[in-house]
């Protein structure tokens, strides 16, 4: 039989760079979330300019959670579709957004805290999907591909 140690390489598995989840409950969690995002982006080989854009997008979305839903979660994970990328999911079970179209307009904010929030963040990512239901919560899924 082949004597090579499968198990040792096996433990590394296919999930070399995995998903990480950061619960968002307080201000400091925003920093943790964007640090996780930047670290993953760096591992995936994103340029430092892109790493900063990704960290900034995470920061915006994490703050959205804190301001509107109080608690939620940021998930960052590697993405692939022929090319390498990163996916960021911001999820909360908060009040939801009644009018997404309006929320996506520049300068719109209900709490007065988010001048550029959603539209600005959409601009710096390659893909941006928002699903929200009043009373149920909001999930924003964003992707950025390596150029």
């Amino acid at each position, binding site marked *: 039989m082949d004597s090579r140690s499968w198990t040792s390489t096996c433990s590394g598995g296919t999930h070399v760079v995995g998903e990480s989840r950061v619960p968002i409950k307080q201000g400091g969690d925003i920093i943790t979330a964007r640090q996780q995002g930047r670290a993953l982006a760096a591992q995936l080989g994103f340029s430092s300019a892109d790493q900063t854009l990704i960290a900034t997008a995470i920061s*915006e979305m994490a703050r959205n959670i804190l301001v509107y839903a109080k608690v939620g979660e940021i998930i960052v994970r590697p993405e692939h579709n022929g090319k390498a990328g990163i996916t960021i999911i911001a999820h909360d079970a908060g009040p939801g957004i009644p009018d997404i179209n309006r929320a996506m307009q520049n300068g719109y904010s209900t709490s007065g805290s988010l001048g*550029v929030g959603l539209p600005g963040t959409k601009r710096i990512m390659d893909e941006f999907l928002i699903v929200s239901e009043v009373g149920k919560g909001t999930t924003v899924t964003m992707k950025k591909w390596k150029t």
Partner: protein
Amino acid sequence: MRVPILKQGSYLIASIQDALSDEDLAQLQQELVARVGQARTRGVIIDVTALDVMDSFACRTLRDLAHTITLRGAETVIVGIQPDVAFALVRLGLSLSGAQTALDLEDGLALLDQHLQRGNTRGR
């Protein structure tokens, strides 16, 4: 994480050392505004070299802070914005309108000197 504020002549220099939470930033804002009133401060420099991310909240806080300091009779210069951060701010559609910017502490001080000399003489 508290931000140390140094007094140098008629200037106050706040050097941000590490990533700031929203609470830290809000605290810095209060403290700076209070100290501008206490000592006869003519200029304030906020050094953000250590910030690797500036999102809309940070940007707006700094902008408001600069505005408030102006109302209290001093000038604000934000120094040390990193290249990647500057680009991210622009891409997000954010601006520091109203606040002056300079490359680093040295340039920030020179800028304040230049502006204040134009007004009157000043002792450091």
